[in-house]
C-alpha cells in the first residue's frame, strides 16, 4: 500500500471516460458510492455490464473491487455498517429500490467466492439447494435434471456423477470451486459475479476454471475480480481499473493491457503499484 499513499486522490479526481460500452447492457451502476460507517470505500462508480461478456475488475488490494462486486447483488446488505448510495440497475430496474426483492435479485445475480465454500452437504444437495429454496422443480426427476445440467455446464459432471452423495467438502479445491459455480448456475442467473475465484487454486485447477468462464460467457454476463493480470487478459473482453475507491479507467481488455490512457493504470500494469 506504500505506493498508493504517495498518490493523493481528491474527489475531483480525473477519470478517463469509458470509450467502450457493451453492445447490450444488462447491469449499470450510476454514481455508486459505498460507505463503511464514516469511511468511504467507493466514490461515484459508473460502470456498465454487458450481456454475454466477461468484465474483469482489476486494481491493487483495498481498491474497492470486491466492495463493488458485492453491491451488484446487494451482499453488502449483510454488513451492518455498509451504506450504498447511487443507482444500480438490472435490466433498467433499480436494485436498491424498495420494490426490488433482494432474494430474487440474488437468484438472478449469482456469486462465486474467493475461497470455495460448498455447504457441508452432499454434492447433489449443494447444487439442489438454490432450485429447492426457489421452488424451481416440480418433481424429483426435474431436480435430477437441473443438477445434472448444472454440473455438466460447470464441467464437473464426469468427475462426480458416481458420487453425488459424497460431501461437497470432500472434493478437491478446484472441484469445490466448480461445484460452487454449478450451484450458482442451478438457479439460472443472468449475471455471475466471481470474486477472485482462482486465488485459492493451483494452476491446473485455475486453467479449468478459466476455460469454464470462457464457455459460460455464451450464456451469462460475468463480472470477475482478479489479481492476476494475465488471467484478466485471458478471460475478459473489457477491463476496469479501480484505484483507492475510484474507477480510473474502463476499456477493452487489449487496450487496458496494451496502451492504457491513465498514468495510474500504466503504473499498475507495469507492476509499479500493487
Amino acid at each position: 500500500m506504500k505506493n498508493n499513499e504517495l498518490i493523493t486522490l481528491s474527489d475531483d479526481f480525473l477519470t478517463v471516460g469509458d470509450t467502450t460500452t457493451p453492445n447490450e447492457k444488462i447491469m449499470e451502476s450510476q454514481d455508486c458510492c459505498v460507505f463503511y460507517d464514516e469511511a468511504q470505500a467507493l466514490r461515484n462508480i459508473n460502470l456498465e455490464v454487458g450481456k454475454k461478456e466477461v468484465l474483469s475488475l482489476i486494481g491493487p488490494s483495498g481498491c474497492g473491487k470486491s466492495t463493488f462486486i458485492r453491491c451488484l447483488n446487494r451482499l453488502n446488505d449483510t454488513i451492518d455498517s455498509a451504506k450504498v448510495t447511487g443507482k444500480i440497475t438490472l435490466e433498467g430496474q433499480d436494485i436498491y429500490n424498495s420494490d426490488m426483492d433482494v432474494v430474487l435479485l440474488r437468484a438472478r445475480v449469482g456469486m462465486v467466492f474467493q475461497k470455495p465454500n460448498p455447504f457441508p452437504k452432499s454434492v447433489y444437495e449443494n447444487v439442489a439447494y438454490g432450485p429447492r429454496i426457489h421452488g424451481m422443480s416440480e418433481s424429483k426427476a426435474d431436480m435430477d435434471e437441473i443438477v445434472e445440467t448444472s454440473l455438466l455446464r460447470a464441467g464437473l459432471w464426469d468427475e462426480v456423477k458416481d458420487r453425488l452423495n459424497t460431501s461437497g467438502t470432500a472434493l478437491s479445491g478446484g472441484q469445490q470451486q466448480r461445484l460452487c459455480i454449478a450451484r450458482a448456475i442451478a438457479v439460472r442467473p443472468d449475471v455471475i459475479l466471481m470474486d477472485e475465484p482462482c486465488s485459492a487454486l493451483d494452476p491446473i485447477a485455475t486453467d479449468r476454471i478459466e476455460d469454464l468462464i470462457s464457455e459460460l460467457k455464451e450464456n451469462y454476463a460475468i463480472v470477475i475480480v482478479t489479481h492476476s493480470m494475465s488471467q484478466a487478459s485471458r478471460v475478459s473482453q473489457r477491463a476496469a481499473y479501480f484505484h483507492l475507491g475510484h474507477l480510473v479507467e474502463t476499456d477493452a481488455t487489449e487496450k487496458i493491457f496494451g496502451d492504457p490512457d491513465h498514468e495510474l493504470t500504466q503504473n499498475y500494469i507495469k507492476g509499479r503499484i500493487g
Partner: protein
Amino acid sequence: MSFSFFLLVLIILGLGSYYFGKSKALALKQNDVVHSLPKYYGYYALVWFATPALIIVSLWLIFSEGIVTNQVISSLPDNIKTLPTNELTLILNDIKNKAAGNLVAGESFIGFELAAETYNSYSKIAENIIIYSSIVLGLISFIFAYISISGKLRARNRIESIVSKILLVSASIAIFATAGILLSVLFEAIRFFQIISFDDFIFGLTWSPQMAIRDDQVGSSGLFGAIPLFLGTGLISLISLTVAVPVGLMTAIYLSEYAPSRVRAVTKPMLEVLSGIPTVVYGFFAAITLAPFIRDFGETLGMNIASESALGVGLVMGIMIIPLVSSLSDDVISAVPQAMREGSYGLGATKSETIKRVIIPAALPGIVGGILLAASRAIGETMIVVMAAGLSARLSINPLDAVTTVTVQIVTLLVGDQEFDSPKTLAAFALGLTLFVVTLILNFYALRIVRKYREQYE
C-alpha cells in the same frame, strides 16, 4: 522458633538466594559469555533453595501427626496401650485437647497429665527438626546450585522445564480429585452391594428404604429398587430439556444471527446473570411461586395436580439451564464460517432459510454436545428438586404427579442420625455412583461430539 517466624526466615533466605544467583551471573557476564539473562540464574538458585524446604514441610504436614501420636502411645501405661482402637482414639483425643490447653471432661487415668506433656514435647521436637533441617538442607542445596552457576549453565531452559512441571502438577490435581471422589463413593457402594444385590438395585421397581435400624425394632426390610428414582430424574430432566432446548436454541440463533450488536451487548450478560443465580433461589421460585400456580391452575380446569408436580420442578430447572444451552449453541453457531452464510445468501436464500438449511446442520454436532452437557447438569441438579420435588418414589411418567429424584433420595438418606453401615445409608453411595457413571457417560459423549465438530472446520 514459631511457625510464622520460620516462614519469614524462609522467604528472606529465598529472596537472598535469588539475589546471590543473579549477582553471580551478573559478575560472570563482565568477562564471559553467559547463556541466559541474569534473572534466570536467580530463579535457578531460588528453586534449588526452596525445593528441599517444600518437600520437608509437606512431608511434615502429612506424617508428623502420626509419628508423634505413635510416640505418645508407646509412652502410655500398658493397661491403656492395650485398649481397643476406638477407646484408645478417645483417650488420645483427650490428651491432644489437654495438650492444646483446652478443658477436658475428666482425667481418665494416672499419667494423663504426663502424656499431654509428652505429646507437647514430641510435637515441639518434631517441629524443630523440620524447621532446622529444611533451612539447612535448603542452604546446602543452594550452595551446590550457586557453585554450579557458570556461563554455560542453561538456566533459562532449566526454568522452562520447571515451569512445565509445576503446570503438570496443577493439572493433575483435578484428575486425582476425580479419581479420589470416584474411589470414595465406589468403596461405600461396594459395601452396599454386598448386602443388596446389584440386580435388585438396578432393576427393582420399588424404592422403600425404611428398615429396622436395630435388631429389636419392628420395621419393613427395605426395598432398594432404583428404577422409580431414575424414572423420576429422567422425567424432570426431560421436562426441563423440553423447555431449555427450544428456548435456548432460539435465543442463541437470535443473538448470533439477528440481534444488532447493541441488543447483544445487553442480552448476553443478562443471560449470564440467569446462570449465576444460586439454585436455592430457583428452588424457592419453584416451590413457592410456580408449583402452587400450576396446582391452582389445574384445579380451575378440574385436574388434580400435586403441589410437588414434576412439571413445576422441570419448568424451573429448564429456565435454569437455558443459559447453558444458549451460550454453548451461540458459540458453535458463531463458529460456522461466514463464507457458508454468504454462499447461501448469494443463492437468494433468506436469513431463516440459511439458518435452517445451512447453519443449523453445520452446527448440529456442537449443538447436540451442548444439549447433552445441559442434560447431565439437569440430571445431577439437587437443590431445586430437594426444595420443590416430592419424596415418595412413585413409578410414574405423568408430569402432573409428584415424583422424586436420585439426588433428592441421596440427600434424605444421608440427612439425620444414621448408622453408617446400614444399607439405608450405604444406598446413598450406590445411587451417587450410578448417577456419577450416567453423567460421566453423557459428558464423555458430549465432549466427543463437540470435538468431532471442531475438526470439521479446522
